[in-house]
């Protein structure tokens, strides 16, 4: 037996030490690239290119998002836009449902994420269905005021709204003669509803359907949000909760039942930012976000969702395309 034996151990220890070092430095910062042009004032006006402002480089902003395609695309758009404006941007997308996202924001692990006015009203601020504002502008003003009490700044919203929708297949709609949600009351006891895990406690989901429409379904099955269209087209669900801007609605010919009792509030997307970050970031933050928001119409957002869900682009690619084609970045 020679003296070879100790060396493998030395090697192992070195590797382990290196590994510990890697762990310490391992926290990844996702940076986008910077633009070549620089100037002293930045941001953009609607339709114009975002100009990089060196002064923004001192500000670090972490953008978060919830756990479905539209949110990830929005998160990527905002992250890239702010990066183009010169900020130091990190991404923490795909956090989870709205409660998880809000908690992460309040705890400071992220600095901003896009929330929907309707979701905020119902899930965060406990607004009763009968008190819900019907107009998008009114909904935003109320949400802005309520978020301000939590030291959060809600930036002006997007033009598009994307609501929860009660969806059935065309076959089911024809079979039971369903056009509005109220039509479900005669047949709900025979139907299975599939929804996200948080659907049980949301007034714009199962809870609201039970209280506002008095619906009692045969069974409620919580499934992951990514399955919301598949369970319907696959025949497992009789009824499913989808979003207005889901590209699968059109592709699979779903019938979106009309909200005749006005259970759903407006759902424009507003970027909610921590007050400390907002104050530190200067005027370019709001200006850049407002600029990229301007072109986010329902058609465009549905297209963006389709590019990810149907064309299998990544949210990052879809966001890049959006910013380039509308002239915000090169």
């Amino acid at each position, binding site marked *: *037996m020679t*003296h070879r*034996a*100790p060396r*493998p*151990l030395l090697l*192992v*220890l070195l*590797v*382990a030490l*290196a*590994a*510990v070092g*890697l*762990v310490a430095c*391992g*926290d*990844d910062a996702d940076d986008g690239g910077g633009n070549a042009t620089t100037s002293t004032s930045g941001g953009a006006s609607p*339709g*114009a290119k975002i100009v990089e402002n060196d002064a923004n480089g001192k500000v670090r902003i972490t953008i978060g998002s919830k756990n479905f395609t539209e949110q*990830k695309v929005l998160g990527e758009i905002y992250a890239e836009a702010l990066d183009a404006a010169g900020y130091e941007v990190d991404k*923490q997308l*795909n956090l989870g449902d709205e409660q998880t996202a809000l908690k*992460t924001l309040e705890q400071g*692990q992220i600095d901003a994420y896009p929330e929907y006015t309707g979701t905020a009203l119902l899930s965060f601020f406990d607004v009763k269905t009968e008190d819900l504002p019907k107009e998008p502008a009114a909904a935003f003003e109320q949400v802005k005021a309520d978020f301000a009490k939590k030291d959060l700044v809600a930036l002006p919203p997007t033009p598009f709204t994307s609501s929860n929708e009660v969806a059935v297949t065309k076959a089911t709609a024809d079979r039971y003669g369903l056009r509005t949600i109220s039509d479900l009351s005669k047949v709900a006891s025979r139907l299975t509803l599939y929804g996200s895990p948080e659907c049980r406690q949301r007034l714009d989901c199962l809870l609201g359907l039970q209280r506002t429409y008095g619906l009692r379904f045969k069974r409620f099955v919580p499934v*992951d949000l*990514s*399955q919301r269209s*598949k369970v319907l087209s696959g025949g497992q669900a009789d009824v499913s909760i989808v979003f207005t801007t889901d*590209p699968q609605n*059109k*592709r699979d*010919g779903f019938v979106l039942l009309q909200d005749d009792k006005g259970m759903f509030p407006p759902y424009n997307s507003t970027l909610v930012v921590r007050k400390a970050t907002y104050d530190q970031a200067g005027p370019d933050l709001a200006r850049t976000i407002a600029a990229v928001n301007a*072109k986010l119409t329902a*058609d*465009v957002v*549905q*297209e963006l969702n*389709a590019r990810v*869900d*149907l*064309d*299998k682009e*990544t949210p990052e690619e879809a966001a*890049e*395309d*959006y910013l*380039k*084609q*509308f*002239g915000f970045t*090169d």
Partner: protein
Amino acid sequence: MSGPLPPLAQAGEGFVRDRDAGSGASCVADDGVCPGWIVDHLDRYADPLARHVLLTVVAIAIGFAISFSLGLLAHRRRWLVAPIVQVTGILYTIPSLALFFLLLPITGRGFLTAEIALVSYTLLIIFRNVVTGLDGVPPDVVDAARGMGLDERQVLWQVQIPLALPEIAAGLRIAATTTVGLASLAFFAGAGGLGDPIYADPNFKSNVLVAGGLCVLLAIVLDLAILGAQRLLTPWTRRAVAG
């Protein structure tokens, strides 16, 4: 997509593609298994794969360092074996998913949280095999070594550890393949890895096949690598098998 910037007045024109039903029933749009798409988009999995490798290798390295040291310690002081096995055993029974989520509020999202959980899962397996391996060295061989004048330290490093290598390597292999599997859940802790693309589109069969396949391949490669290293370091076993 790069190209000349369109004039501002027409920015975004044609952005919304024509998607009327029937106009694009392709393999990809149907969430199927599409070899063409897979080949074109393999680069998409490069970063998650690299991340996955990093998560796994770091976890095994640290886990091995800890377990090996503990194993050496417990080999001498036998009373340590039971408590160490119990503590690492408890860590091992906590489902990995639960451990990720339990750590989140304490250590936040990211690499560190994932690593703490992943390292914890390697400890029991490797520790157990280190101890069993050292126990498995025939006492006659140890006596003979002592008889040749080797001191305790030399006996340990030149006789016992090399003879225990097959058992230790076996534990490392199990730990490695298990860690690759668990690292696929690391994205829940915000640490990336191959679980990220899987969960991003769990309906797209091509996506799940590629990301999952890479996971399995990685595990097999690591398994064979450790086996190969073991064979290299223990040439006497090769001769025994051949004879």
